Structure formats: C-alpha cells, structure tokens
C-alpha cells in the first residue's frame, strides 16, 4: 500500500482526481525503468483523461552511480516548472546518463547551468529525493520500477498489456 498519498508536492501528469492514478517509483539509471518509460507513455495515451501519472524518485545509488544526481537534476528542473521535460530527456538518453547529459538538457531547457551545478554541489534537492525514497521503502517498494495503481502495489509484469489490464480492472471497480 502506498503510505504517502499523492499530494501537491508530487510530479503529476493529468488530473489528480482522475479515476486511476498510476504512481511509479523509478531510478533514472535503471535499465528496467528505461524499458518502462515508453510503455508508460503509451498507457497514458491509451487512458487519456481517465488516468493521472505520478513519478517519484527511488535511486539505487550504490549500483547506479549517476542515479542520485539525475534525480536531483529533475528536482532542480521541477523547481522551475520543467520536471517532465527533464524526466523525459533523461530516459530518452539513458545510455548517456551522466553530468554532461544533465548539463546538455539544462541548456536545452534554457535553465542556468551554473545554478544546476550549484544545486548539485550543495545537494539542494537531496532531501527531496531522500524523502521520496524513504516513502517508497515504507510503502514496500522493493526495486525499480515499482508501480502503484490507486495506492495498491502492482506486482505483475509492466508490459503495456499487463498495465492496461491491471488499470482496466481498477476502472471497473
């Protein structure tokens, strides 16, 4: 069960009051999350206004050396209203994940590279990432990606059909 309800601090695509809210706990360096990225996009398109999507950070920092900084970079972008563009940019270029990509994406989004470097050096967004992570741990996130559909952990596979079937089941309730 999701212990931290979807709230105003979350990054949400769609209406938080939609009949279905899909929450993903993900890591930008995790290849399985990279696989899930285009699938989630398709699922969002499929359900349209009936579904909202929330992304929360769950970086496994010991096995993924760039994951923490990537997460902080998205939070830096979020503070300027550009979370989803940064999120998409990181997953779409996952094979190049690292500081040069963070800088390139910040430039593309016309965000200050200087401010980004400062935020990363000072760990301005570290506590935000950490609180996402610990909220995930408390909710039983056991790896990445972990999905919750209306607050319940989805333990099945995360292929397009698997997610659509699981979400349809919730819509019918």
């Amino acid at each position: 069960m999701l212990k931290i309800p979807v709230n105003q601090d979350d990054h949400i695509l769609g209406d938080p009051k939609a009949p279905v809210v899909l929450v993903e706990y993900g890591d930008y360096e995790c290849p399985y999350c990279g696989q899930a990225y285009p699938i989630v996009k398709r699922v969002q398109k499929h359900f349209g206004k009936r579904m909202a999507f929330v992304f929360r950070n769950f970086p496994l920092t010991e096995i993924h050396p760039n994951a923490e900084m990537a997460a902080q970079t998205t939070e830096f972008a979020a503070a300027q209203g550009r979370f989803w563009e940064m999120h998409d940019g990181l997953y779409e270029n996952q094979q190049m994940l690292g500081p040069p990509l963070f800088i390139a994406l910040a430039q593309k989004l016309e965000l200050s590279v200087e401010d980004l470097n400062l935020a990363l050096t000072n760990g301005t967004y570290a506590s935000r990432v950490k609180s996402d992570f610990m909220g995930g741990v408390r909710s039983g996130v056991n790896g990445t990606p972990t999905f919750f559909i209306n607050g319940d952990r989805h333990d099945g596979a995360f292929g397009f059909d698997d997610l659509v079937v699981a979400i349809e089941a919730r819509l019918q309730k």
Partner: protein
Amino acid sequence: MPLLQPGELAPDFTLHVTPDQQLSLSELRGRPIILAFYPADFSPVCGDQMALYNEVFPEFQKLGAELVGISVDGVWCHDEFAKSRKLHFPLLADYEPKGAVARQYGAYRQKDGFAERALFVIDGKGKIFWSYLSPVAVNPGADGILEALEDLSKLSKS
C-alpha cells in the same frame, strides 16, 4: 519445518563471512540483528533484495541494528556479489553442510536446494522478535523490517 516464530530462541550458528573469517550469531548479541535469508546471489534484476537493503542500511543502523544476509552460495561467490553491488553488510555462506542454518530457521526449500526469502529480526537477547516468509519470487522489501525494529525499540524503552 515451519518458519521460526516470534518468541522462539534464535539458534546460534557460525558461518564463513570471508574465505578466512567466521561469524557467529552470538558475537552480535546486545543489539537487534536482521537475518535476511535469500535464494541466491546475482538475481538478474535491479530490484535485487540485497541491493535494496544496502540502500536502506543507514536507516537500519539508525535503529541500532546489524544486518546479515545468508544464502547457500559459497564465500567466493558472495565476495564477487558483494563487490558488484558494493554491499556494506556481511553475507554469510550457508554452504557446508548446505543450507544447515536455513533448515534450523525453517527457511530452506528442500526441492530447490536454496533458502527461502525469509526475514528475522532478533532482539538483543537472542530471541526472535519478528519473522516473515515471502513468496520466493517476491522481494519482501524493507518496510516490515523497519516497522519491527521500531516496535522493538519502543518496547525496550518502555
């Protein structure tokens, strides 16, 4: 044999932790111990149970607990696995006789020849405070362990 339950004494054991070092449960007395049995090193997912516990390890430590992982893999395999995942806690080799400790805890899968995903929180006096058996395909996460450790620390304060 069913999984050992809260209130039972945790059987002591001595297992290799590195090729030339052994660790006994009784040496860790005096603080809560998390025993995490798992089937095998190198499961092919990022959702790897030991990698997750490695990330949550500082939280376990804040609650005063020690963590050890146990599987039937040998020390050399553990060594390689621990290095690849940069683990900060010891892995014990329940290797010879194979699965002997897992059996004592009711956490051995006879037909598969490896340990269950079974979790134990043992109190400072060596008694089992909490245990949990997860379906073998499901990583049990860390929420249950954290709740058990918190309950234990509340109890010891009251």
